[in-house]
């Protein structure tokens, strides 16, 4: 039975800013190596991209996992019934600028120097040569990495399909006005005294449905999902602040902060 209370909503916000590339001694060298000053302008921001819709001819999407906290998804592909051969990582950033920063971070952890790759997204870098096994790039505010999971596998045949999927994404005319998945609050559900705090999310029906969630709690509390909603297990008495990240199928991320009190 659902009870009346909509728990105290601390905030329901859009997105946290992406981290800027830290100013370590290597930053300038890295920017020079990859010619950041000469990078072409970014494509306009996109609404999002659902990784489930990214298909590669002759390959089967074997697994797909969305990470609501990072607005990121990892999809693995391979022969049907076989082992994964390549992995696609998609991440939706707030802005194209943040996506470029993310790209530079990705390039910065590669030990060799990747080469610019034309005809993919608005900017891409790949293993030098005709048969790359790693490609990183951006398309507006979307960042992508396509990498072979096995030696000897190259991703060249997959690039046209990836590029087409990126280009088919709808532009976000005004990134500030993009409708994000949204929860209006939480409803506390009946719970046994001393037991976990049971609650349900009250979703905004006008917003995209979340395809993935993430709960971050203060006080070392943790959340489990159950058939009847969610159960908050606190480490002790007192109020727990819960930050709920909601991620749509196309990686738009919204956030809700609420306070729940164990009884």
């Amino acid at each position: 039975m659902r009870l009346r209370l909509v728990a105290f909503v601390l905030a329901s916000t859009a997105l946290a800013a992406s981290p800027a590339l830290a100013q370590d001694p290597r930053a300038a060298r890295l920017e020079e190596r990859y010619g950041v000053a000469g990078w072409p302008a970014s494509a306009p921001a996109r609404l999002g991209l659902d990784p489930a819709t990214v298909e590669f001819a002759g390959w089967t999407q074997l697994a797909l996992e969305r990470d609501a906290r990072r607005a990121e998804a990892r999809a693995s592909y391979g022969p049907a019934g076989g082992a994964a051969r390549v992995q696609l990582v998609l991440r939706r950033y707030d802005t194209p600028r943040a996506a470029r920063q993310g790209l530079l971070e990705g390039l910065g952890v590669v030990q060799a120097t990747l080469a610019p790759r034309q005809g993919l997204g608005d900017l891409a870098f790949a293993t030098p040569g005709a048969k790359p096994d790693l490609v990183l790039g951006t398309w507006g505010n979307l960042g992508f990495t396509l990498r072979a999971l096995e030696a000897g596998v190259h991703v060249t045949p997959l690039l046209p399909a990836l590029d087409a999927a990126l280009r088919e994404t709808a532009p976000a005319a005004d990134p500030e006005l993009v409708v994000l998945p949204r929860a209006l609050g939480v409803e506390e559900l009946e719970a046994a005294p001393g037991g976990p705090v049971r609650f349900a999310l009250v979703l905004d029906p006008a917003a995209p449905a979340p395809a993935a969630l993430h709960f971050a709690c203060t006080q070392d509390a943790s959340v489990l999902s159950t058939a009847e909603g969610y159960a908050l297990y606190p480490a002790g008495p007192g109020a727990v602040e819960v930050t709920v990240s909601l991620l749509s199928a196309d990686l738009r991320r919204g956030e809700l902060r609420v306070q729940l009190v164990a009884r």
Partner: protein
Amino acid sequence: MRVAVSVLLLGLGLLAPRGWAQATARLEVSSRVFDPKLAGAELACETERAGTGSYRAELSVLDGQGQTVRELVDATRSRGRSYRDRWDGRDASGRFVAPGDYTLRFQGAGSSRTLTLHVVRLGVRAIEFEGSGRVPLTYHRAEAWSGSAFPVDNAGPAWTLPRSRVSAGCLDLPDGTPLDLPAYWTDVNGPPRTSSGALVERGRSLPVAYRVGTTPQVRVTLGQTAAVGGRERSANYPIAGRPLRIVVEGGPGADTMSGELRPGDRVTLDLQPLGPWLGKWLLRVPLRFAYREDDGSWRLIPGGQLSEHLLYTVLERPSGQDVPGGRPWVAALDLVSTWLRDDTQREAEALARIVRGINGGLGLSYEATQGAPAYTGGPDLASPELDLSAFLADRQNGRRVNCLDCASLVTQLAAQLGARGQIEIMGWDFRLYFLRGLGAPGFARDLFYGMHAFSYHAVATFDRGVTIHDACLSVDDDASPWVAPFRERLPIAMPEADYRRQLSYDWFGAQLFGRASPR
């Protein structure tokens, strides 16, 4: 996995009514207090009739109303010979008798002896682990979503009996059968869940961790009642004049303790000190009960309760800066434990085994086309985010890794054991001698399509760069690392200056230090 505390065999001395030695009939029992539902519980009864020839022996258990509930012996026996019989605490129809006071009666050839037996219901229904050496643990991924950590302590007591349908404090099923003891939970990712996703709050044994060499304590909660025929019954203690106590087999005796048990009590007990060895263990906690005899001595009650727990032993509790909350991940400790042999005690040994484990124990290979990481990233090269969840999930991002992955794994997995290390970033842009990447068939000088140079290199250090650990590649540790033959050395606590000398003929001076944060 090894057994940390084993159960000792139960010793059964016998007790007799006062003055038996002068009598012609003798009746002795192993205990005047008896809980037949404890594991291994049997009441030994010894009888003897003096003289020669044979006699008709009857040994019976009578209830408080004098009704026979079980006839143990009705047979012709020889005088002058001692007989040992056993009572399993069941009545004539095979059911456990209800807690209460019973009379054991021995009759033979006109002589009769009786003893009062207190049948009780003892047992622990929950165990919490305590003590200064305890290290709280975390399940890193209790849900489908990444980052769904669940501190094990949030589940409540580490060990609990299932909940009886009779009552929360009852030790039995409604039909009187004792509740099953839980098996230890082996899923290293999350706690046990019901089919609807709810946490299994009763009837499970969750893992625990302690620092090596410390003495674990258990805080046990006693059950309160028994069940008989679907109804709740008193546990039949405390017993006037016969106080009860709980002890750990092999630990301090009941005579060293104080107080008297009552149903529902919570009692803290010391276990045996842990050894100095790191790793994963099966901890068995053998609980016994004792009562005070008429002469003031303490006598163990037959049977006991044996709980089993997965135990991880670590060097120290990790810093909260290294491992979120300072709580090691069960899955990470479990992985590391596969590399620790029985004799691993010191940090240096553990680090060596971790480096070798990553280098050769997981089927990983060096990503030799561009040195791209599979599990690490983030804005700060020296302090990357390590997707340890994906790594623990059967190497979800593949088995081709780079140096930053390896350095992050070495430092992070060591941190789970309580060893505090750092990632050291070496740079920038230097050419290389012959190397053997992990998983490579031999030494080569053809990384990155022949470029064979690093823009940077990451290693692990536990002494701020004096020595380094590199699970990613072996160097040719001879005087001429630019040419065959090769003397392979996997850098484990290798002096950094030596390592640099064997790695590259370029000067590369950068040193950045940081730590990987797991997600």
